[in-house]
């Protein structure tokens, strides 16, 4: 079922821009935030809310910018792979510290670390260009240089392919013993430890996976926009990812993508009459989903509200 949803989504996203070319860029950015939201959703499965995942989004984006500047690498796939590796490593380092904490402390510490990185990116003017950010040139595709529009046309399909692949991988992960243990962390962590499962190991691997997903999203956004800025790590961006994940529903990997696309559609619809009050629209939508659609738009098995019955 999730695979079918993914495929339908992918087909929709693939076909529309053929008719309306400027939608390509919008869709690429939308899917990029979908990746980051998917990363957040992985952790939400364990009941952990991170208001700091914009950190890895920014790490992925800056990894691309630095790699281009330092080594002159322009190959798209090399850049994306490098961004995933770098953000995975960042996830490992930060995660090793984070998995000691739960609930509010987890949320707040993620926020704090992302704000440290945000401040550093803004402050290290000589290295990162400060708040001006860094440029990202149009990458090459397996050796051939394309002009921006042609590149975006191809890039969109690359990104769709990645999102289907990531969706399937995350689905497999959720069904693996590690993934099942992750969901069990929320329900009863101590019992899990009595079963001989290393909770920290389970959480750390989930954290690294979520960091890699967010990093990939950031790399895609950085390449699509052609510019990376410290604001990519700002806490409201993290909040946006959580929001996308919850709007879409966190039960399956398609949820965050649905959330991202839903938000973008909503934004397009709202731009006519509520461009100035966009946050208000999103805030209300989020409240409605939380109170009346607890399982998110995706709608299957909401983890967040399960516990209510248990209490």
């Amino acid at each position: 079922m999730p695979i079918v949803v993914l495929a339908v989504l992918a087909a929709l996203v693939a076909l529309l821009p053929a008719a309306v070319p400027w939608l390509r860029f919008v869709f690429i950015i939308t899917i990029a935030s979908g990746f980051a939201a998917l990363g957040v959703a992985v952790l939400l499965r364990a009941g952990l809310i991170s208001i700091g995942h914009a950190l890895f989004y920014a790490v992925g984006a800056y990894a691309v910018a630095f790699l281009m500047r330092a080594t002159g690498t322009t190959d798209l796939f090399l850049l994306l792979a490098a961004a995933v590796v770098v953000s995975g490593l960042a996830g490992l380092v930060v995660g090793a510290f984070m998995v000691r904490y739960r609930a509010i402390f987890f949320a707040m510490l993620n926020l704090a670390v992302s704000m440290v990185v945000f401040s550093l990116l803004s402050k290290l003017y000589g290295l990162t260009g400060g708040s001006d950010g860094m440029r990202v040139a149009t990458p090459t595709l397996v050796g051939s240089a394309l002009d921006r529009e042609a590149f975006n046309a191809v890039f969109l399909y690359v990104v769709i392919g990645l999102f289907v692949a990531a969706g399937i991988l995350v689905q497999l992960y959720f069904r693996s013993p590690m993934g099942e243990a992750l969901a069990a962390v929320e329900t009863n962590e101590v019992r899990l430890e009595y079963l001989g499962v290393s909770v920290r190991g389970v959480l750390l691997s989930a954290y690294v996976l979520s960091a890699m997903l967010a990093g990939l999203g950031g790399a895609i956004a950085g390449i699509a926009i052609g510019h990376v800025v410290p604001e990519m790590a700002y806490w409201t961006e993290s909040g946006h990812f959580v929001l996308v994940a919850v709007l879409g529903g966190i039960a399956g990997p398609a949820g965050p993508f649905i959330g991202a696309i839903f938000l973008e559609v909503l934004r397009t619809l709202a731009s006519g009459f509520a461009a100035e009050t966009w946050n208000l629209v999103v805030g209300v939508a989020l409240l409605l989903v939380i109170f009346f659609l607890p399982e998110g738009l995706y709608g299957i098995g909401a983890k967040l509200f399960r516990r209510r019955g248990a209490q």
Partner: protein
Amino acid sequence: MLQALMPLLVDGLANAALIFFVAVGLSLVFSVLRILNVAHGSFYAIGAYASVSLSLWIVSAGLSPWLTLPALAVSAAIVAAILGPAVERGFLRWTYGRPESLQILVTFALFLIFEDLQKLVFGVQSLYQDAPVQLFGTSEIGGILYLNYQLVLIALAVLVVVALRLLMSYTRFGKLMVAVVADPEVSQALGIDTRRVYMAAFTLGVFLAAFGGALASPTVGVAPGTGPEAIVLAFAVAAIGGLGQIEGAALAALVVGVVRVLAIYFAPEFEAVVPYLVMLAVLLVRPYGLFGSVRVRRI
């Protein structure tokens, strides 16, 4: 030597006072409701907007500028009286007992809504009204002129810490709050109306946030972005002090304020990172903050 150190001390305390007012309401709300209120920064900003608007009206109506002083507290009280009960009764009470992540999301949604409401009501430009600053004049300390208003803020911060402590320890309302914090269910069984305690505590938290914004507005003004900036600082300070600890927040504000001033004097490039670095350093040593205690893990 002392002469050279005095400015450091005054600047440190002045900074700490501003930081304390950003954070204290957040800590108070957390200590009673156990909710991490992301919309706290919005209350701070709305308090600033309200007080600037009221002061601007007072000045333009030709009333005595001294009236802008009580206006700081009055505007905060109005904001708290309207928003406190509305937000607590309208939204937060539905989330009691639910996962923290859900509570954080609800307050995040409120934060988004308040951000746009502020723009609709108060516009998008930066506003200020510095009559209170001009009323107090300046004093020379250690060879440097300071705004007396800065010194007034330091005194007020101390006053608020003491007042909150007295409120908690010696008044009926304070004792009820302490009881509810200790055990909501037993309190309820004993006949305490926990709903009213929650509502009152939240409203007090909103008042402190709005008051903080109001006090800062004469020197730093208010503009879109004030709320989001305030909340991160508040989080950092509350976490350093230990969530829910009033004295902890005061000590944390002092530490962050002084370290920030040292940074500006001796290593300005680190100034922006100071609150977070202090937070990480403290939490590495004491994971639940300076005054915090480990909560029992559920089985």
